[in-house]
């Protein structure tokens, strides 16, 4: 459904993404994991057409249509919704207006969608007229996801949806992700919470300094020692107890 072929992305002269190829099949949840600064958000932004003149090399395809070099406003109507990193709500608009904006590309009445969002996130319903900027961090995250749902996209791209959410809500959000996926929506997910991400994904990529270094179904990845150590934090106990700070840098080179 979505595919990037060997894309390279530059910030000025610095190459941030180096020949990245990923595929997302229809009906799937795919996750991208990776350390800070690996280039995950950059990749998503490029897919969404945010970065002018990027990708420098390579192509991006959505439903057999080439979408690299299109403008964001041309990409969204094709059926892609995007939840940016760090919430990015419209701070001075009310929650209701925020949601309406989510349905900008769709014509007609959207009250049914609004109800659906309130069904997922009842908190928002009580705050219909509150300015979004005064919501707590987590509430804003819910609004951002809800807003993306408004356009009934075929593919939803989420950048760290669990950022700043309480454990209970993280669970809920992932439940919701699973639900909407079962309702037929394809999902591409960038996450730091590897455990959760792997628990819902059908397929995952691990990204380091602009490259995919590992990919496969979650159960396979879970067995990988490095993944266990760096993303799932399974071997942390002893090192904490020993008050020892050690870091294995330069992996997968």
């Amino acid at each position, binding site marked *: 459904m979505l595919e990037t072929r060997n894309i390279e992305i530059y910030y000025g002269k610095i190459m941030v993404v180096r020949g990245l190829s990923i595929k997302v099949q229809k009906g799937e949840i795919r996750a991208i994991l990776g350390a800070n*600064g690996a280039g995950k958000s950059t990749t998503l932004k490029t897919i969404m057409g945010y970065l002018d003149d990027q990708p420098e090399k390579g192509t991006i395809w959505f439903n057999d249509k080439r979408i690299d070099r299109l403008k964001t406003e041309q990409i969204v109507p094709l059926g892609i919704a995007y939840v940016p990193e760090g919430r990015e709500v419209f701070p001075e608009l009310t929650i209701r207006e925020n949601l309406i904006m989510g349905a900008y590309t769709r014509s007609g009445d959207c009250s049914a969608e609004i109800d659906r969002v309130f069904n997922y996130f009842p908190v928002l319903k009580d705050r219909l007229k509150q300015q979004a900027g005064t919501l707590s961090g*987590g509430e804003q*995250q819910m609004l951002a996801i809800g807003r993306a749902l408004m356009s009934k996209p075929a593919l939803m791209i989420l950048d760290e949806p669990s950022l*700043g959410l309480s*454990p*209970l809500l993280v669970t809920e959000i992932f439940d919701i992700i699973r639900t909407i996926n079962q309702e037929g929506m394809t999902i591409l997910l960038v996450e730091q919470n590897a455990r959760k991400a792997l628990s819902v994904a059908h397929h995952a990529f691990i990204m380091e300094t602009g490259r995919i270094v590992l990919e496969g179904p979650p159960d396979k990845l879970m067995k990988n020692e490095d993944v266990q150590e760096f993303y799932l*934090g399974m071997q*942390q106990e002893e090192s904490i107890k020993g008050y020892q700070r050690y870091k294995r840098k330069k992996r997968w080179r």
Partner: protein
Amino acid sequence: MSFLAIKDLGISFGGLTALSSVSMNVEKGQIFSIIGPNGAGKTTIFNCISGIYRPKRGSILFQGQEMVGKKPYQAAKMGIARTFQNIELFSHLSTMDNLLLGRHMHMKSGILAGSTFLGRNFPAAREECLHRERVERIIEFLEIESARDMPVSALPYGTRKLVELGRALAMEPSLLLLDEPTAGMNQEEKRDMMFWIRDIRDDFDVTILMVEHDMNLVMEVSDEIFALNFGIKLVQGPPHVVRNDPGVLEAYLGRD
């Protein structure tokens, strides 16, 4: 007398009660965590302590002094430093300058001294050198040397969080407020952060008040945990007590 004593704190925003009658005592040298669902009022507590919000009632005694009604810069002068949930860096400046701004309070040169030096030996220049050294030490400690001269807006999220932490440290506070210090980090980075938090407490001799959603981390490092829901206290106690509290399980942790 506790190091930080919050008593009966209450605040509301146009009908919405964000905090109602919250009390807590933080002892010197503790790592004290506040947990709670989204919108519980955790950040609001921070904002009250650091003078950004003015609570409707209650008192906040910091080292015996009333904080309610103080301006943020006064709070800073009294030794309270903080980081922000959504990162508030001086985005056009380099990491170095950001940290130097943390030293602002400890520097003295005014307009006259600042504008009239010609060599190393003028007071303003000497002061500048001194503080730059301090900042270098913090940069080294947090291992963000590579970011030293980069404008912070070009740094990845996780590094920006570190810079913000560094800036707070540069203030040499006696109380450090950390709002979700590890949000957006992966396990490995979180683990580093965990060490740092401990090291900071030990090496820099500060008391740490922290809001965090990562339970592993909270349970590991905290001496005391305060759980909050809808602006009301759920429980307070050491990790093992809070972890098994049914209220916390239900409202916050979920069945995991």
